[in-house]
């Protein structure tokens, strides 16, 4: 008998605008000692399906319309809240996406850790504490005795997720539901957490549901893969099966969206457009405190027409470099030479004139557009500001930009909140290209988007890059994306460049230990994505 057998589960939300079906006839099973991965993009219903099993979907507005969920033979959906509570946190435990917001900031991790044990098994405080210490050690928290009374904010993201895992495992559950447990983490940390989950699962022989939007992440650990789209299961199979011979077009699309391969080497002669020399950008956190060296003595060139990739984890200073070049943050020292002009020396009108030649695409398409301006206003602003079109002809320019970035002209009078993430990013790209710049800084332009949308936007960027003859600094934490897109790559670590080279050079012959660690952390690396 399967540990968990979900049949025809249907969940909907009753909203003011009508009934919204979130999960529509979903079936899957989880076996003891195996990992079932549920894959889908945002809004596919993957999380709702799992939360509804444990009664964690708020009702109302949530509503379970039908189906069964047999956990060790008992139907979870028919259980009363009190009975379900005895299973939650004891037989079935959960870990969530963002370990920062999922731990109570007002309570020491020790107390939070002991809580399920004390509540479900009425264990004495000493015994619970001893068990908590054991588990913290098991999930790899250094010196648990010293840190057990600390509060969540005193831990790093990876450590917090380890605490979450320890908390989930403290009652020896037989089923663990992990909802995007690594999405908020850096690549190297993600690799560690994935390894930890797989290890613990094997050692304890428990069943795991692993929810993720990213096929590559689950590639190494999933035994069974369930692919969801718009509330329905579109494909299911053993891990290998899915990767070798996916049948459903949506799964194929997901697989194709995983960036792979290197860009063909450039044949154009090298002629630097931008020369960065000994760039330092430091931030003073407060009076008397030592400055944070976000960027420390970095030098590099960007050739005309080249895409230079900048990779690194959070805090490596990769975004700050891009913003320093564009003069969006004050540069502490060093020289930035743009086509023979020293950018660091520019002021006022001269700077404004230069801004026309260099633009930026931001990470979060929800934050990078003024919510009170229509697409028309957003796109017309740069055109008018730099006198590219007269007021009379600006409409024409706006519509042409919309054509270029693949937005329907009919949307021109709509506001940002009426668009999806991918569409917004197209608007943002249009705004950046409006001034016909020579140079673009793309700061993680796809990391906030769903995988399939990610692929579309990357394609668009490549096409426009060719069409407009752009030189690009492409900043990303995602090595695979950068390899796919960039001619050369710089690897950053704590504000310094640790290694540079073409994609193939870096991937095949990494020289530095840090680069090797990064490469090994790429999810699904062994499958050759």
């Amino acid at each position, binding site marked *: 008998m399967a540990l968990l057998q979900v049949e025809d589960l249907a969940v909907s939300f009753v909203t003011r605008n009508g009934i919204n079906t979130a999960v529509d006839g979903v079936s899957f099973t989880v076996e003891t000692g195996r990992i079932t991965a549920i894959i889908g993009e945002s809004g596919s219903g993957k999380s709702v399906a799992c939360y509804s099993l444990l009664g964690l979907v708020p009702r109302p507005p949530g509503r379970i319309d039908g189906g069964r969920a047999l956990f060790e033979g008992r139907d979870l959906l028919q259980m009363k809240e*009190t009975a379900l509570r005895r*299973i939650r*946190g004891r037989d079935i435990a959960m870990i969530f996406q963002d370990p920062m*917001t999922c731990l109570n900031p007002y309570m020491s991790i020790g107390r939070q850790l002991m809580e*399920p044990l004390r509540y479900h098994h009425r264990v004495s405080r000493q015994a619970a504490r001893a068990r908590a210490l054991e588990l913290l050690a098991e999930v790899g928290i250094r010196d648990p005795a010293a840190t057990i009374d600390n509060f969540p*904010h005193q831990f790093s993201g990876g450590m917090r997720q380890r605490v979450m895992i320890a908390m989930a495992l403290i009652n020896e559950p037989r089923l663990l539901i992990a909802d995007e447990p690594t999405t908020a983490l850096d690549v190297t940390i993600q690799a560690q957490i994935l390894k930890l989950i797989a290890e613990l699962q094997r050692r304890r022989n428990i069943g795991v549901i692993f929810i993720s939007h990213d096929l590559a992440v689950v590639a190494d650990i999933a035994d069974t893969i369930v692919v969801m789209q718009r509330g329905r299961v579109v494909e299911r199979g053993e891990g290998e099966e899915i990767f070798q011979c996916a049948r459903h077009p949506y799964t194929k699309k997901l697989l194709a969206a995983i960036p792979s391969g290197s860009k063909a080497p450039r044949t154009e002669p090298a002629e630097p457009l931008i020369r960065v020399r000994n760039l330092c950008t430091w931030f003073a956190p407060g009076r008397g405190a030592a400055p944070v060296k976000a960027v420390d003595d970095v030098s590099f060139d960007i050739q005309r027409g080249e895409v230079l990739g900048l990779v690194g984890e959070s805090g490596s200073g990769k975004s700050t470099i891009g913003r320093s070049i564009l003069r969006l943050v004050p540069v502490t020292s060093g020289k930035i030479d743009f086509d023979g002009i020293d950018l660091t020396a520019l002021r006022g009108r001269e700077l404004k004139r230069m801004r026309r030649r260099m633009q930026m695409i931001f990470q979060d398409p929800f934050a990078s557009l003024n919510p009170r301006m229509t697409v028309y206003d957003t796109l017309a602003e740069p055109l008018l500001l730099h006198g590219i079109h007269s007021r009379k002809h600006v409409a024409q320019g706006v519509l042409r930009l919309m054509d270029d970035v693949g937005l329907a002209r009919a949307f021109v009078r709509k506001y940002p909140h009426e668009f999806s993430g991918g569409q917004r990013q197209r608007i943002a790209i249009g705004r950046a290209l409006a001034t016909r710049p020579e140079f673009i800084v793309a700061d993680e332009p796809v990391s906030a988007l769903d995988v399939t949308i990610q692929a579309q936007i990357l394609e668009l960027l490549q096409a426009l890059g060719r069409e407009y003859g752009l030189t690009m600094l492409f900043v990303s934490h995602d090595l695979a994306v950068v390899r796919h897109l960039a001619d050369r790559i710089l690897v950053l670590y704590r504000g310094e460049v640790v290694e540079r080279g073409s994609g193939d050079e870096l991937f095949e012959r990494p020289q530095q230990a840090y680069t090797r660690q990064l490469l090994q952390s790429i999810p699904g690396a062994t499958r050759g994505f």
Partner: protein
Amino acid sequence: MAGRRRGRLSVWRFITLRLLQAIPVILVVITATFFLVRIAPGGPFDSEKPVTREVRAALEAQYRLDLPLHRQYLSYLGDLARGDLGPSFKYSGRSVNELIAAGFPVTAELGLYALLVALVVGGGAGIIAALKPHTAQDYLPMSAAMIGICMPSFLLGPLLVLVFGIHLDWLPVSGWGDISGDKVLPSITLGAAYAAYIARLGRAGMLEVLHQDYIRTARAKGLPQWQVVLKHGLRGGLLPVVAFLGPAFAGLLAGSFVVETIFQIPGLGRFYVQAAFNRDYTMILGTTVFLSVLIVLFNLLSDILAAWMNPRLRAQYGRH
């Protein structure tokens, strides 16, 4: 252990920092009050029967009004440092210290009861409302809170007197500690508006917290709803209420002016209003300084309490 010690150290640091910040505030209060009162038109003895030049000079000397302004100021600061607020202009032979000592305990008691009413009724209503938002359990206490906010104490007090004191004749309508039950109406009158504010703040705070991810975590642990709310929700949810206690205290003191007037309670607030009418300058000066220092200190206290309840804030002050 290391983390714990760091936490405690930063609390002290925070307190010291805030105490140091309070000093300029108190100095500004003293200085501003002193000079404001001095530039006020009309001398303190104008309204009384005309006095002879000699008597006037003697009086001025007694109250040090014959010295140049800056000397008056300095000597006043000196007196303050010794805790001496000077003699009253109006009640001859009584010092401001004595008047405050007589009135403040009454006002403090009234304020304490009012705060209790506000916290218990308001906090309770806020939590109850937040547990089932957009149901009768929410609308009922929140409508009451809205009435509480729109019904000022100087209207509520007389109305309560009219209903419970005169028509129903259940409770005494004036005095303080003379007849049993005479403390009930003033405490409710003063506390009602703050109960209403706290109910609204508490509801908003609890709703915000109950939507947090860590509440979902607590539910995923299998805890029953009341434990989720009390153990995980309350602390974060009531933080805004704690931060509001400082301003609430200042408001309660000011509100006591009105309530003490309505119920004829011999407290500091009534003395202050009388002093304002009588132009009893030293009394105004002394009471303003006394109340200001009290309010500043209470603000400090509520900030410290809020910081102590919030480990992240603690850490923030530990780092610099």
